[in-house]
């Protein structure tokens, strides 16, 4: 097994229930390399958020381990920045103070001026400034709040960025704009990102790889889909990429049909994943073009 920057090894989370216990997910093993953007897709209740919480160190897995940079993850750390679905800004602080909150926690010895300068750099990066940064979250639109939240997460310069459905509560237009901004920032900073989403198009636009989860309980990561589309990407041109629709069809087919068919517990001896193997890698873009042209695909 090759060593990845982030290594998730046979993770499982079970909760005590009335009869025995409830297994939310099990046999989850995968790796993320440095600078890669990985999305995870699955229906509600499959344990995506639980995996995210384990990675963030906010929850402890029942079985399995998480290693980052060769060290086991135990408890929350500033090495992992989290953007929560509901922004989680502190409402009594201004947008700027919410960012400096993170920066001060990261570099407690910095001077006030240094903290301010650093915070403004990241607020500018997400397009917030000109007075909006001095307002409280309640006075900002949903899109602006999520920008602040993203700025706070990037400002602590984490080794791994965890995004829990960050655009779920936004309207489609705002979502599109912030997705593109996030894409630009990630390309520029070579940030390693793990993101939960429900949105297939969002996943294809942003991710290098998409993990597909079967329905819970006993959810598993069934496949790892390679998004074989070159960077830089943008929303308007990505849909013309020959790989786009094969990938999209594969994802939709999985969500609509196969996630249900594959759900349920699997006997360990019939499932290679139970032994800690990584999910099967599929490349719908390459499979689709293999038939007609022999176009070369750069490895993502």
């Amino acid at each position: 097994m090759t060593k990845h920057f982030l290594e998730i090894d046979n993770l499982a989370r079970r909760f005590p229930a009335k009869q025995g216990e409830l297994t939310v997910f099990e046999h989850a093993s995968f790796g993320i390399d440095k600078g890669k953007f990985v999305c995870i897709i699955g229906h509600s209740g499959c344990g995506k958020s639980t995996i995210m919480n384990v990675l963030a160190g906010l929850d402890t897995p029942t079985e399995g381990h998480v290693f980052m940079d060769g060290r086991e993850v135990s408890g929350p750390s500033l090495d992992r920045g989290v953007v929560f679905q509901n922004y989680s800004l502190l409402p009594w602080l201004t947008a700027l103070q919410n960012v400096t909150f993170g920066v001060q926690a990261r570099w407690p010895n910095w001077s006030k001026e240094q903290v301010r300068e650093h915070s403004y750099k990241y607020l500018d990066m997400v397009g917030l400034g000109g007075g909006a940064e001095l307002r409280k979250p309640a006075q900002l639109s949903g899109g602006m709040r999520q920008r602040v939240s993203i700025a706070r997460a990037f400002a602590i310069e984490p080794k791994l960025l965890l995004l829990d459905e960050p655009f779920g509560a936004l309207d489609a237009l705002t979502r599109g704009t912030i997705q593109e901004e996030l894409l630009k920032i990630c390309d520029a900073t070579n940030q390693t990102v793990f993101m939960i989403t429900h949105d297939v198009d969002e996943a294809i636009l942003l991710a290098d790889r998409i993990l597909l989860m079967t329905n819970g309980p006993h959810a598993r990561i069934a496949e790892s889909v390679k998004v074989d589309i070159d960077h830089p990407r943008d929303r308007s041109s990505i849909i013309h990429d020959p790989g786009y629709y094969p990938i999209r069809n594969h994802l939709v087919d999985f969500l609509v049909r196969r996630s249900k068919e594959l759900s349920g517990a699997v006997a360990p001896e019939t499932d290679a994943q139970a032994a800690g193997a990584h999910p099967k890698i599929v490349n719908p873009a390459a499979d689709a073009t293999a038939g007609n042209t022999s176009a070369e695909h750069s490895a993502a």
Partner: protein
Amino acid sequence: MLQSLNVRATLVSLVMLVVLLGIWELANQAPAADKPLTEYEMLMGGADQEARVPPPSAVIDLAVDELSNPFYDAGPNDKGIGIQLAYSVYRVLAGYLLAALIAIPIGFLIGMSPLMYKALNPFIQVLRPISPLAWMPLALFIIKDSEASSIFVIFICSIWPMLINTAFGVAGVRRDWVNVARTHELSALKTAFAVILPAAAPTILTGMRISIGIAWLVIVAAEMLVGGTGIGYYVWNEWNNLDLTSVIFSILMIGLVGMLLDLALSAATRLVQYQE
């Protein structure tokens, strides 16, 4: 100008005040004498056969008189209204601040720790419904000082709303905000001050506002009991003097000071209020 709700409300208030005072004034006029008064009748206060509630005009006269020199001190039984109120406010604030000093940290503890909540809950449930004045004999016996005893009574009555509201506010801090503190590796102390305290502050301040109201209610009764100084003592003393004009005047002053205390706390609440 009549469009403004505030202006109209003020007008209605004024009309009601005038009507009320008018009824009060007219209902308490001494009947006019239909024949010349005897010397005895004049000595006993006119032709009136029964005592009447003093009319507002008498109260206003007294108020002007008292408030023009509120801080005079002519011996133990004749002090200005300002001095009496100052004694009461001092006792209330002393007992109240002492209570805050203890209630807020313990409330924090109870709010943070389910174990401490369960362990302390029976004590709180039993001690809370006790009328603060019921503590008075015990306090007098143990403390052996009437001044300190009345402060203790204020302490014991204002501690509960603050304690319960602090615990409630701290326990109800949104999980997300605590998670923000955790993912930023804040220490327990830093989390308490930077996240939980500001998050729970509106609830804590609400408890403090309830407490100051109760403390001001209780101080009047406590001072009637211990005597010596204070607005409660003043009310009872004037009752013993059968000076009902002073009694009514001091009742109004109690209301006024209570309102000011409440306004101060509500202003403080607005300072820490945040919009989610």
